[in-house]
């Protein structure tokens, strides 16, 4: 493992823990196309880790590797000090990873509450017969899970749309519901794929506040992909910069901002 002190404190006093996930020399190919080329980085407990890069840099592929949707041809993924074998996405989900999608993937016909409840699926263990007659274990589980879900609804301030079918909601709120569903799984790592894409300024501000608050309040580890540079620099503790499938920068927002390669690739070369 990389030698880092077990615990250190971020500037604002938040606790940053040991390495939770370590990605080592990941290479992902689609036929002849190399989407990710020999990338290594780690995610530490309690931090907000951003992956940025221009379009087609391989950010979403990277997230899909983390979530287990793509299996890389080369490289290793270590999670909580153990090497993770190739897994199906649902197995990864059981390990404690939850994600949101760039293009919202909710059940349009179901209510907000039911959508969020689906995030608790991995925590419902009652046998079918019990669920069918809603008695005994199934009832207890439902109550417990509903309580957790209600806390999330309260946290994300969506009480007023609890019973509204998701299909009727505006885009910004759907994004919030997606976040709620991912949170409902009580993930070890929360993966956010462009959480602010397509939002107006006010919605972005709200989303930023929620991300910061949930990291602060619950200590949730967050890995996010984002286009909006301002957002990334404000939110994250550390940033990985990708370009054409390669890693060209890694460090705190300030370090990354000062990195000449990053500037030329992502921010554009200054002409002055």
């Amino acid at each position, binding site marked *: 493992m990389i030698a880092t002190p077990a615990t250190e404190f971020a500037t604002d006093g938040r606790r940053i823990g040991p390495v939770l996930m370590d990605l080592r020399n990941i290479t992902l190919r689609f036929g002849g196309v190399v989407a990710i080329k020999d990338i290594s980085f780690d995610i530490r407990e309690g931090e907000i880790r951003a992956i940025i890069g221009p379009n087609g840099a391989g950010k979403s592929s990277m997230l899909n590797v983390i979530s287990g949707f793509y299996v890389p041809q080369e490289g290793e993924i270590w999670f909580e000090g153990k090497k993770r074998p190739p897994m199906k996405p649902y197995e990864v989900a059981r390990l404690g990873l939850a994600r949101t999608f760039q293009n919202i993937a909710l059940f349009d016909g179901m209510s907000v509450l039911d959508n969020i409840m689906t995030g608790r699926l991995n925590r419902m263990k009652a046998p079918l017969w019990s669920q069918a007659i809603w008695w005994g274990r199934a009832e207890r589980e439902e109550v417990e899970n509903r309580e957790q879900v209600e806390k999330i609804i309260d946290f994300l301030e969506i009480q*007023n749309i609890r019973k509204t079918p998701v299909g009727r909601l505006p885009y910004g709120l759907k994004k919030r519901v997606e976040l709620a569903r991912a949170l409902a799984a009580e993930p070890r790592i929360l993966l956010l794929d462009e959480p602010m894409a397509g939002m107006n300024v006010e919605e972005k501000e709200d989303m930023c506040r929620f991300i910061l608050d949930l990291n*602060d309040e619950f200590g949730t580890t967050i890995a996010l992909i984002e286009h909006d540079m301002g957002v990334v620099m404000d939110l994250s503790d550390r940033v990985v910069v990708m370009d054409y499938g390669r890693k060209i920068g890694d460090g705190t927002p300030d370090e990354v901002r000062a990195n000449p390669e990053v500037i030329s690739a992502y921010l554009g070369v200054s002409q002055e």
Partner: protein
Amino acid sequence: MQQMQTAEAGLQSIPALLARNATAFGTRTAYREKEFGIWQSWSWAEAAREIRDLALGFLVLGVERGDHVAIIGRNRPAHYWSMIAAQMCGAVPVPLYQDAVADEMAYVLGNCAARFVICGDQEQVDKVLEVGDRAPEVRHIIYTDKRGMRKYDHSRMNALADVQAEGRAAEQRLGAELDARTSGLGYDDTCVMLYTSGTTGKPKGVVLSNRNIIETSKNSASFDSLNEREEVLAYLPMAWVGDFIFSVGQAYSAGFTVNCPESAQTMMTDLREIGPSYFFAPPRVFEGQLTSVMIRMEDAGRLKRWMFRHAMELARRVGPAILEGRPVGALDRLRYALGNVLIFGPLKNTLGYSRIRVGYTAGEAIGPEIFSFYRSLGINLKQLYGQTEASVFITQQPDGAVKPDTVGVPSPGVELKIAESGEVFYRSPGTFVEYFQNPESTASTKDAEGWVATGDAGFFEEDSGQLRIIDRAKDVGRMSDGRMFAPKYVENKLKFYPNILEAVVFGAGRDFCTAFINIDLTAVGNWAERNNIAYASYQELAGHPQVYAMIRQHVQEVNASVAQDPMLSGCQIGRFLVLHKELDPDDGEMTRTRKVRRGVIADKYADLIAALYDGSRNVFTETEVTYEDGRKGRIRATLTIEDAQVVSPALHHVKAKGIAA
């Protein structure tokens, strides 16, 4: 409190009433709040315990007799408890408007020299911190919602739950001190201080004594025979005197249940779930509900629309009579009962009015159509007239004598007189003690005999004996030819159209009247959708020629109706424009209770007013706006000005035919 005699004599403060309720109604529900999707409740005995813990916690923090404790947050049991706990310590609670910006807050906190501030959440804490040096007396902040507060410097800050825990631990040490302070509260000690919304100038702190609050609450509760079984929904700003009377004064004196909604956005759902039996709402809430019912009915199927139309026709004809117990034919009664099963019952249930026994509206005039809509459904909606300085009640309508254009008879214990100028004066047990540290204003409002000027012009209707308010006394003026000018009278008529949200009429000292109109985005937006009118922004919709045509239609109808009143026929509107932005309290154009600030608007839009009178067809303007987060921006627009037809009084009976005023 074994004997009734001693009990009544001892009930000279809200904490004393609380102790009475904890004994008399111990197991009845005192507070309910929806949290995590479930209604959590506290009985009177439990509430008394919570409040005591909090009061002890305040003592630990060093709350002194006579301190001012500011409370800023939405309607939550914890915030009501804070007010009572402060009173138990001998301190004075000062609830503030939670949407006040930091500047407004700075003035009030500085003015009352609040030493303790209870904040609902991080947002309010941030504002108090931003005020900083401008309120140097603030010693400690207590917040209810812990969210986002972990990183703050806690040397002068605590969570409310922690204060309670510390208080609980200090029972042995400070219990006797607390009891001594609570039992020392007298009838003439200050109960609460509320800041007026400040239509003119800086807000003033209205000092209300225990006598004011308790006497008024008792009188008004007996007027409507309120008892401990009532349910109310506490959703109006805590800083407003009405909420203090309904959710504290009357709730404690009658012992009924106060329900707090989950959040401001869920108020309508919560209203429906609770089904209050006693309900207060400003006219705009009733208007909003009616508008949404009508919009949804337009989208309903043919059969439903037909049923709704027929049932409502019947209800309009016989509903009010049935409600007031007047004779109605057996067949109509039967049909109304059927309508109740099919239409009125389900509709009332949807609106949350299934169990309503007494409903009040006040603050602004309510449209007669809207008023009779609710009454015809069998909802006992009435009007009252009041103000902060009177502990709300000046006049109210008794059951069975309700009219849309009057505000009722004097409330029990209130004396009324009308000055020669037409201004209404009152004297009552609820009359405020004074304006805080402002003897000049106190003296100019309340005379030596205790008569208070309301600032409103009105008269008693001869046939019903009820009071009718025309306008603010200072807004009533003369036009250049000496005819009477009462802007509010015309504005109210305009606002009765669902498409018009707000109107401001000018004309004092002028030859004719003009108006600014604010469209109602919900209603007009819906209308635009139906008529395939595309628009990208509020501004574009407001300036649309078809919208102008529609508004002109409304203005002309109002003119015809105004012309019927010989005293006020001069107030017809000759020219008008539709404003490119909504008038907003954040821009200082309205008070927090959404009353138009004429002075501010006249200054800010002087260019528009000039254009209304100089005959130009359109005018370019640039306006500063404040966004919700306090940032400022500018919007530019070219506004069209249109002429409206004015009806000469001689012709009015022809033109006005078929127009409901």
